[in-house]
């Protein structure tokens, strides 16, 4: 089906090849999970399948990549469109037409599929992905999950033999992600489509994989059965880490399998109380008080009268599905966003009534796309500019802040060339330069791998320990379980749940982390807690 024959890919300005001497053979009807850390070359590997690498991205490809006996060297992506369908991270960026139906038909039109056949396939695909009610809807009106399903449907209609999905759920909330992944597994089982899937949040997909392709990060690629591959992989979901810790063999990949072998573990820690992630100072007066905050855009009410207190040395996770008002609330609290009515007070002042400079000295916000704040050529220039902007703030120079957040980011690099995690650290450093007591992070976990998330957790805990109030909006339950002291769940602009992480997260299956599902009724949330409990039991 897909063959990589001694493939080495080198980008023009890179010192070393991204992929080195890769040999792969993928059979028909397999669901292959591509795992690896950020920058290990997952996207490059996926792009090489239909020739986008190197036809579109540049660089050189040595060796041969063949799909259904077609060599990508002589077949550009458009000539492989009938064999390989590609879905990217941002479905909106790849839409060519306006409505669901037209988008589904577009690929077939390019392949000159006769009109009656097109009609039939569009109807079938609408039903297969549950899109029939949306057929005339404008694409940009759909929710993220619906958009991603349309994007998958749009590449399915030409009946490709291979489906390549590059992090299809990274922008989705847990429910929408489930929706998309369920659709993908159904395709594999019903149609026998070969699927290549890259995904950061492995806990969602690992149970469906037939095969795992692991990119070590040095250009080498190994592949094998999931259970054997995860025993040693550099990235692993919590269920695997727990399995490794407990020494289960074969390694369970789903909550169900893990639960069946976890009885002895549950027994051994049944009496242990999970330690709280970090010790906290007793709560003093809240740093930020928000009262009856209402945000509306025309007829749409995004935030409906929310009251919220943020205390010092507190990490709060803001959860809720896409469009539930998380971002609007963060922006309203910072003072730069819209706020129809309500009151926000930090240090006795409302940031909305202050100058931008005074407002950011009270509340710092890292937006969803941190790159929006970057406009200079080098990291050093950005840091210098931040020192100028925050002149007089009681804080160390931005460079020192950055080194503390993420060491080893060189001065002369262009901010666009940084990895997601490094860029996040840079923007956070710029915002921290103003020494705000309240720090808000809007979806910082997007596109971060497990290691990057781990360092983000460390940063967040350090910030809180310095006496700040930290708010993180995120969809990532595993991250929340490890990072947050408190969880606030929003739905349709209202707070539906607010309480300590363990209480809120365990209460609903959608928000429960894998460890808690495996070890219920014990209230363990993270592997670290289990490690500590086991250590204590042993000593």
């Amino acid at each position, binding site marked *: 089906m897909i063959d990589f024959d001694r493939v080495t890919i080198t980008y023009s300005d890179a010192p070393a090849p991204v992929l080195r001497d890769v040999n792969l053979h993928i059979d028909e009807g397999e669901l292959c999970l591509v795992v690896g850390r950020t920058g290990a070359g997952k996207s490059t590997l996926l792009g090489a399948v239909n020739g986008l690498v190197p036809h579109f991205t540049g660089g050189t490809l040595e060796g041969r990549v063949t799909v259904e006996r077609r060599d990508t060297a002589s077949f550009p992506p458009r000539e492989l469109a*009938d064999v390989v369908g590609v879905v990217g991270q941002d479905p909106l960026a790849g839409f060519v037409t306006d409505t669901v*139906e037209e988008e589904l038909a577009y690929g077939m039109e*390019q392949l*000159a599929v006769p009109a009656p056949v097109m009609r039939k396939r569009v109807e079938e695909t609408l039903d297969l992905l549950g899109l029939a009610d949306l057929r005339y809807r404008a694409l940009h009106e759909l929710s993220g999950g619906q958009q991603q399903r349309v994007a998958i449907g749009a590449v399915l209609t030409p009946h490709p033999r291979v489906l390549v999905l590059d992090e299809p759920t990274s922008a989705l909330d847990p429910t929408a992600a489930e929706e998309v992944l369920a659709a993908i597994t159904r395709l594999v089982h019903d149609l026998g489509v070969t699927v290549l899937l890259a995904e950061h949040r492995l806990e969602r997909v690992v149970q469906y994989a037939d095969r795992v392709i692991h990119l070590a990060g040095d250009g080498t690629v190994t592949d094998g059965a999931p259970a054997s591959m995860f025993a040693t992989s550099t990235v692993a979901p919590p269920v695997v880490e727990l399995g490794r810790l407990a020494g289960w063999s074969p390694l369970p990949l789903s909550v169900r399998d893990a639960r069946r072998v976890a009885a002895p573990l549950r027994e051994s820690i049944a009496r242990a109380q999970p330690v709280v992630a970090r010790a906290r100072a007793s709560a003093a007066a809240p740093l930020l008080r928000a009262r009856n905050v209402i945000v509306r855009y025309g007829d749409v009410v995004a935030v409906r009268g929310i009251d919220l207190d943020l205390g010092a040395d507190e990490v709060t996770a803001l959860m809720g599905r896409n469009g539930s008002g998380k971002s609007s609330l963060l922006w309203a609290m910072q003072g*730069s966003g819209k706020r129809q009515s309500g009151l926000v007070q930090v240090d006795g002042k409302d940031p909305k009534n202050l100058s*931008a400079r005074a407002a950011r000295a009270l509340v710092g916000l890292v937006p969803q796309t941190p790159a929006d704040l970057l406009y200079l050529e080098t990291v050093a220039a950005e840091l210098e500019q931040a020192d100028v902007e925050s002149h007089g703030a009681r804080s160390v120079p931005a460079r020192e802040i950055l080194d503390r957040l993420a060491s080893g980011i060189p001065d002369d690099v262009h901010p666009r060339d940084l990895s997601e995690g490094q860029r996040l650290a840079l923007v956070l450093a710029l915002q921290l330069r103003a020494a705000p007591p309240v720090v808000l992070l809007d979806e910082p976990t997007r596109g971060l791998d497990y290691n990057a998330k781990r360092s983000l957790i460390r940063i967040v805990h350090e910030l809180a320990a310095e006496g700040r109030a930290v708010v993180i909006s995120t969809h990532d339950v595993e991250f929340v379980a490890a990072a947050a002291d408190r969880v606030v769940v929003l739905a349709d602009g209202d707070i539906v749940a607010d309480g300590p992480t363990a209480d809120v997260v365990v209460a609903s299956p959608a928000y429960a982390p894998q460890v808690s599902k495996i070890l219920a009724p014990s209230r363990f949330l993270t592997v670290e807690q289990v490690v500590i409990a086991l250590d204590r039991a042993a000593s």
Partner: protein
Amino acid sequence: MTTVTRAYAVSDSRRVPRTLHPVAWWVWALGLAVAVNRTTNPLLLLLVLAVVGFVVANRRTEAPWARAFKYYLALAVVVIGLRVVFRSVFGSGVALGDHIMFRLPSIATPSWYSGVRLGGPVSLEATLSAAADGLRLGTLICCIGAANALANPKRALRVLPGALYELGVAVVVSISVAPQLVESVQRVARARRLRAGRSKGLRALRSVAIPVLEDALERSLLLAAAMDSRGYGRAGPATRASRRITAALMVTGMLGLCAGAYGLLDGTAPRYLGLPAILAGAALCCAGLVLGGRRVTRSHYRPDPWRAPEWIVAGCGITTAVLLYASTRLSAADLNPTFSPLHFPALPIVPTIAILFAAVAGFAAPPPRHPHRPDSREYTSRRPEVADGTLEPDPARAPVPA
């Protein structure tokens, strides 16, 4: 399902909603535009605007591009305002007996520049005549806006022959990326406050422009990559030479058509620019079409049919244009009234009827399909019948080359 259909038919309209062929709307709108070019009579121009507004209000869909008509109207108002302001500032003189409304301070221009006058008295006559002039341009803009609001621009581009397909897709990319650009400008402008950078000057412009442009570039590349991997631009069986000849024929033909249209629309253009250029252009385009048609590698999902309503709508536009063209000699003074001396514009009968006739399109075109309206019911009711959801391998699938 029949009962649903019948109930719907009786309650809402006797006709099945569907979208009209985009070319029919474009012919209609261009016909009106040609008519507008023949007159500066504000009554007639306002009538054209009213007709255009009437048809758009009755026959546009709810798609985002269809909601843009109000922006064209706003642009028209701006054009009128600009025209009046320019006429007032660059004083064009006051005729004897004009009604002076106010005087702007007059600025003496140097002798080598004495052709231009700045300031001076502003007369009611000059203002009215400038407004009428602006109204003509504004109405033209609204005619084009109506075509854009009534006909899906992307569907309209699909009627482009294969040889010009590449051109069409460039437009599609810009149409898709433009609204996203607006969105990212808003996002970055809002984010800029977070850094409290300078709010004015070159640096402020840069801090918005650079993230926005990088974003736009990235999106364009993503879209281009997505289109490529979905089979856009597949070569098909045509040779490189035949594609080049087709493209050359089409481009030359289109140039001829443009020049001809200019010649016909602009009364002062030389005569040979009009009909002969249009005919030559059309001939070249036809040749290109025939040649390009040989390499059809695409098919159309739900091709727009061309039926009686299309003929009527296109006919309305053409009739309006022809009637106004013909009446240019009959009622030249009424079509282009002067405001000096001040007097009411006349309402010449033939042009009025011609313009009103264009409103027939509002009735002749089938009602547009609304995504949330009842006609989606029939599709939801069909759903359980095919709910099995298996995609059988299709025998008609294009053969895979070995």
